């Protein structure tokens, strides 16, 4: 649908975009994705290997602390760093005086890049860390030992066997990082980078829906291109071995090396979680200004009900797509499930533009004009539903795979109808997974910024949009309270995610 519309006449607007903005936006997006993915892989893999292969004091605590930055929305962390960068002014003055104007301009140009990359890396690396940790935990010790007996030192075995084998996990984590980066609106706007996602919204707000759609499609193409590139590179290689899974015996670290491990793990942890939280806490306490309470409360209420509606819809759909389609033996259900999971890969910008177009089309039909009024809220929930479907499906599908299908069959042979069996057996067994799915989805919607920002009704604030608006207006101390609430919500998601990870074999 969006694809068809994007083929329409772009008019002179599109010509102008191509001439002035397109290449810069494409280039910036690609570069940012590469930078962020590169550093996130470096940090994620290193931390995952440290906690998987070695034993040292505090390992277990650090193991779960490392996913905390995931609970900090990137734009919230960004706001904390934006302020920090202002303190660098004396350094710039020094550069200008001592190294000349060119150096000064160069640093001025580099700074947003460094800032945005840093913020995105330290908040997104847990995706790589989590997938690699799971991969390392399942890695067959036999393969590593085979390498050892053939003359590899532990380090060499890591480079020649462990790392190549963890590649799908790294790629999966990096793909999430790349998608989140491509999707990001908050951080790049705060730091003033001109990437595709803000570009789409800019074109849209300038009134050229077609241009916006074309840009959004380029974003999708960019992501698909990166994925295909990685796939093609893998070739026919296998990554799974039927060697029995025997976890690697952890090597104990000496006290000196334990310190090193702490430092290595502590840096991203501090940058991604400690610093932003500390920053906002100090602001919240020092400003002591709670005059904004009614505004915060309203925003929080908006965030909460949007998240609630979206997560209920998502979980119901997830239940239908996993257990339901098995119970009623719906043909083509698997295809529906993977199609629904794709929503996560669709850039928010594309989704926003598409849903926006659909809503305005429907509202144009006679008798549906009322929709235009409530349109944005309905559209917003619909957009959340599409985007976060995968978040809901994944835990439910995983739990469903673990539930013996015989149980459902047993209920059926004992005379239960599909619906009754679903209610009495499957839903009971899937309850923890359904709860987890709902929580994760709730948290994701709760802190969602990009979609909300463009699709929300006029004058409608959620906690995320409020925090973002205040920080981009430079009113960071005022943003500290909603930011902290967002982080607290994020923590809820982290706790659920950590429990789900632990239950994995």
């Amino acid at each position, binding site marked *: 649908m969006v694809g068809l519309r994007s083929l329409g006449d772009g008019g002179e607007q599109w010509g102008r975009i191509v001439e002035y903005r397109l290449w810069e936006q494409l280039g910036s997006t690609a570069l940012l994705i590469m930078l962020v993915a590169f550093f996130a892989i470096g940090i994620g893999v290193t931390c995952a290997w440290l906690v998987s292969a070695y034993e040292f004091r505090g390992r277990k605590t650090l193991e779960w602390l490392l996913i905390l930055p995931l609970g900090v929305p990137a734009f919230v962390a960004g706001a904390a760093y934006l302020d920090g960068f202002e303190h660098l002014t004396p350094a710039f003055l020094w550069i200008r005086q001592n190294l000349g104007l060119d150096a000064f301009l160069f640093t001025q140009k580099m700074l947003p890049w460094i800032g945005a990359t840093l913020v995105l890396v330290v908040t997104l690396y847990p995706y790589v860390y989590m997938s690699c940790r799971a991969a390392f935990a399942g890695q067959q010790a036999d393969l590593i*030992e085979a390498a050892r007996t053939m003359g590899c030192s532990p380090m060499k075995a890591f480079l020649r066997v462990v790392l190549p084998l963890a590649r799908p996990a790294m790629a999966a984590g990096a793909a999430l990082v790349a998608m989140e980066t491509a999707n990001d609106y908050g951080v790049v706007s705060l730091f003033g980078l001109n990437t595709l996602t803000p570009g789409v919204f800019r074109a849209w707000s300038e009134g050229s829906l077609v241009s916006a759609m074309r840009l959004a499609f380029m974003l999708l193409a960019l992501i698909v291109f990166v994925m295909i590139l990685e796939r093609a590179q893998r070739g026919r290689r296998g990554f799974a071995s039927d*060697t*029995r899974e025997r976890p690697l015996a952890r090597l104990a670290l000496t006290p000196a090396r334990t310190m090193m491990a702490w430092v290595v793990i502590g840096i991203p942890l501090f940058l991604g979680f400690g610093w932003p939280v500390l920053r906002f806490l100090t602001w919240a306490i020092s400003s002591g200004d709670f005059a904004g309470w009614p505004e915060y409360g309203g925003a929080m209420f908006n965030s909460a009900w949007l998240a609630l509606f979206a997560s209920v819809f998502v979980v119901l759909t997830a239940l239908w797509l996993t257990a339901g389609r098995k119970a009623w033996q719906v043909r083509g259900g698997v295809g529906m499930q993977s199609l629904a999971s794709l929503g996560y890969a669709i850039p928010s910008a594309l989704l926003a533009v598409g849903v926006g177009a659909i809503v305005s089309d429907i509202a144009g039909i006679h008798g549906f004009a009322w929709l235009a009024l409530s349109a944005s809220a309905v559209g917003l929930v619909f957009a959340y539903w599409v985007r976060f479907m995968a978040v809901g499906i994944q835990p439910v599908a995983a739990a469903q795979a673990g539930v013996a299908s015989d149980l459902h069959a047993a209920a059926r042979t004992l005379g239960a109808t599909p619906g009754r069996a679903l209610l009495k057996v499957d839903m009971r067994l899937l309850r923890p997974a359904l709860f987890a799915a709902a929580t994760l989805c709730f948290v994701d919607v709760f802190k969602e910024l990009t979609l909300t920002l463009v699709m929300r009704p006029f004058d409608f604030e959620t906690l995320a949009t409020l925090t973002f608006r205040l920080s981009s207006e430079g009113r960071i101390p005022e943003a500290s309270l909603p930011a902290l609430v967002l982080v607290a919500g994020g923590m809820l998601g982290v706790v659920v995610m950590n429990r789900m990870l632990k239950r994995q074999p």
Partner: protein
Amino acid sequence: MSRFLQVNRITRRFAGADQAALADVSFDLNQREFVTLVGASGSGKTTLLRLLAGLETPDAGEINLEGEMLSRGKQVVVPPEQRNFGFVFQNHALFPHLSVSANVGFGLAKQEDKRQRINELLELVGLEDMENRFPHELSGGEQQRIALVRALAPKPRLLMMDEPFSSLDKALRHELRGETRRLIEQQGITTIMVTHDTDDALAVSDRIVVLKDGGVEQIGAPADIYRTPANRYVASAFGACSFLERDALGARQEQPLIRGVEPSSVAQKELWLRPEDLRLKAPGTDEAIAAGAVSEVFYHGSSQLITLECSGRSGKSFTLKAIRSGDKNVPETGTRFDVVIRPGQAIFKM
């Protein structure tokens, strides 16, 4: 003469385990010898192999190879990567991300004739066409062959195989154990194989080390292990065996029951009989040691394994297992037979 490999009083105890995985185990290996470690699961055989490879550390004891100290007490003197031992893992442990030739060449240093060595090895196992395949594109037998030549590629001082055939079906394992044995002999490499399959052990070994509960039960050539087992455990592990107290037979001391047996051994108290030591005859045979009725028959095609419930002359009842071959008719349950011992076949124990 000092042996090629010396394992001296090795002990290994895992944290939290009541019993040591290995307690005071010693044995030697000659150069070019093919030795098999046999035992049930939990006997410590795999632990022993991993200790030899340096993948585990002993709590006490020494491992020496050609006079070089590899492990002593709790320290691994030589780490696994410097031992130059080949290791064939139970499920092959082929690197799934590497092609067949890269797997075979993994342990080879970057040298000019690396390519040539890989081709040579692949030819040895007839898999030269497979060099660009990946492990998951190979059959079980092909994977096993690649795992073997991968371990042989760096010309190891010692080859270790951990249950190399356990993932293969029966026909394939018979084919492969013969092929493996020939290949190793041809390369002249000293080998230790771990298996729980006593058939494999008897078929391919020069010597067998029988392990039980972390200790050595017996060390010897296959025929010694089979014909002169040290105890009942070893005797039953390597095939069916009937253990009889002589009193059960009620034989008269002055008249040797079994022809061709030294009178001295006739005085022994126990008589251990392999199924092929016994012949079943129609009732009324003179030299019969016992008579009984068929209680169970396992038909094997070329032979039948028959269980007889016997009552000796003294009236005590006991069970005998006998092999009957060359007879097309399978006896019905309850059929009565007389039992005769083939000359010189029984094992006597005090």
